[in-house]
């Protein structure tokens, strides 16, 4: 049996009378990129935030490396969180710090490394994302795509085992989107970490996904390799795939 990085069991969450997650069951494999696709406002971000304890479920379990995290206290939860990196939708860089300090921040707070070592690590991460000479820029001086790359470098700073991506290509033009996706793919292949990506950009996601899960009405209705999902006979899946086809364009990509 393959090892699972994250196991979600029967997860329920409502906000007021609105049921957002309605019994999610999902097993996310170690060292793979799993993409969770769904409509905007369909609860993808809520699901992602559960994985890192930002939101507590009404019911259900989340197992990460053998620990059930929904019942943990803050201190134990923080031990788990150190093993996580997260790239936020708008990158969420600290705008009071420059790019270098943003990436150095988790290293300074969580490790006892010398400034010299930290400098070496930050430069290495900046090089990975192609922004080596941008260390002294402030986040407000960067474009959206550059901010996301810095966000990725910061997420990678502590060499976490699991990295979460919240809509990595939203609000980017198609060409910048591709460079971000390629960067995600490239770092994942090189570092071999577990990536969990949520997005509504189905075309882009087939480029990077090892596994695709489709979230609809608070449930995972489809889960498999991109190949399997494309050949699914499930009505909702087909509807979702068809909706992203460009009329009159039969390139056959999908």
């Amino acid at each position, binding site marked *: 049996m393959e090892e699972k990085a994250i196991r979600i069991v029967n997860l329920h969450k409502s906000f007021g009378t609105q049921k957002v997650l309605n019994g999610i069951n999902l097993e996310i494999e170690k060292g793979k990129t799993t993409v969770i696709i769904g409509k905007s406002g369909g609860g993808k971000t809520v699901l992602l935030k559960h994985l890192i304890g*930002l939101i507590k479920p009404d019911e259900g379990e989340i197992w990460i490396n053998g620990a059930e995290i929904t019942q943990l206290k*803050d201190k134990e939860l923080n031990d788990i*969180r*150190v093993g996580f990196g997260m790239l*936020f939708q708008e990158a969420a860089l600290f*705008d009071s710090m420059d790019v270098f300090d943003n990436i150095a921040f988790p290293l300074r*707070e969580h490790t006892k490394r010398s400034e010299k070592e930290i400098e070496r690590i930050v430069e290495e991460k900046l090089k990975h994302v192609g922004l080596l000479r941008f260390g002294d820029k402030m986040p407000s001086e960067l474009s959206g795509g550059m901010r996301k790359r810095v966000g990725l470098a910061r997420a990678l700073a502590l060499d976490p085992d699991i990295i979460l991506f919240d809509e990595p290509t939203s609000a980017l033009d198609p060409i910048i989107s591709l460079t971000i996706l390629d960067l995600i793919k490239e770092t994942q292949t090189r570092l071999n970490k577990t990536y969990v990506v949520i997005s509504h950009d189905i075309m882009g996601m087939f480029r990077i996904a090892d596994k695709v899960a489709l979230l609809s009405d608070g449930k995972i209705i489809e889960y498999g390799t991109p190949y399997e999902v494309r050949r699914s006979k499930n009505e909702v899946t087909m509807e979702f795939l068809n909706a992203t086809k460009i009329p009159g364009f039969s390139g056959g990509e999908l």
Partner: protein
Amino acid sequence: MIKAFFAPLEKIVREFGRVSMMLVESILLAFRPPFKLNYIFKQMEFIGVHSVFVVILTGVFTGMVLALQSYYGFRKFSSEGLVGATVALSMTRELGPVLTSLMVTGRAGSAMAAELGAMRVTEQIDALTVMALNPIKYLVTPRVIAAFLMLPLLTVIADFVGIVGGYLVGVKLLGINEGAYIDKMIKFVELNDIYNGLVKAAVFGIILSIVSCYKGFYTKGGAEGVGRSTTEAVVASSVTILVTDYILTSFMF
């Protein structure tokens, strides 16, 4: 009907409880290492040093107008000599701490709410949590400590320039006898008047910082939400300061 009447009251009580809990947490976190001294110094500079000019302006004009107003009253029964004591007592016991706190609320409290609010809506607070760092320790605790330390210092400045302003108007402009002015002031103002005023200022510092941080920290709804939080922070801090002022005064004096 009754429910509609009690609904705002219930909200006030609930908010008061949540602000108090945040205050307790931020104080507890202050005693747990690592100590974020550079964060505290940065906030002390922002809340304290950068408020000096506006506090001097407020203090000096308040002292001056106090001298003018009380001169008008005291002249009616020929005791102009008491103007100095009146100005000094009003400044140290009441107007120094209260006006300083209200000015700092407008200047620094609003900035705290806006900054934390913007950090909330751009997910920077979530980013801290995800990094396994407590956002209250990094964002709220340094501001509360800094305001607690700086408000009494600013109040000392306000008291001093207020008394100087009163002296200039009373003695130099209105021609009150200088000897009587100073003598009565020294006779009637005790050190305790000044101390109690400074204790008030420290309490007001805690109130304005924790209320503003709370409003900013729990901001919802984008840019509009940040605006709303900032307004609420200033209004709630100011009202709480004035109410607390009455309560503290009735206990102290």
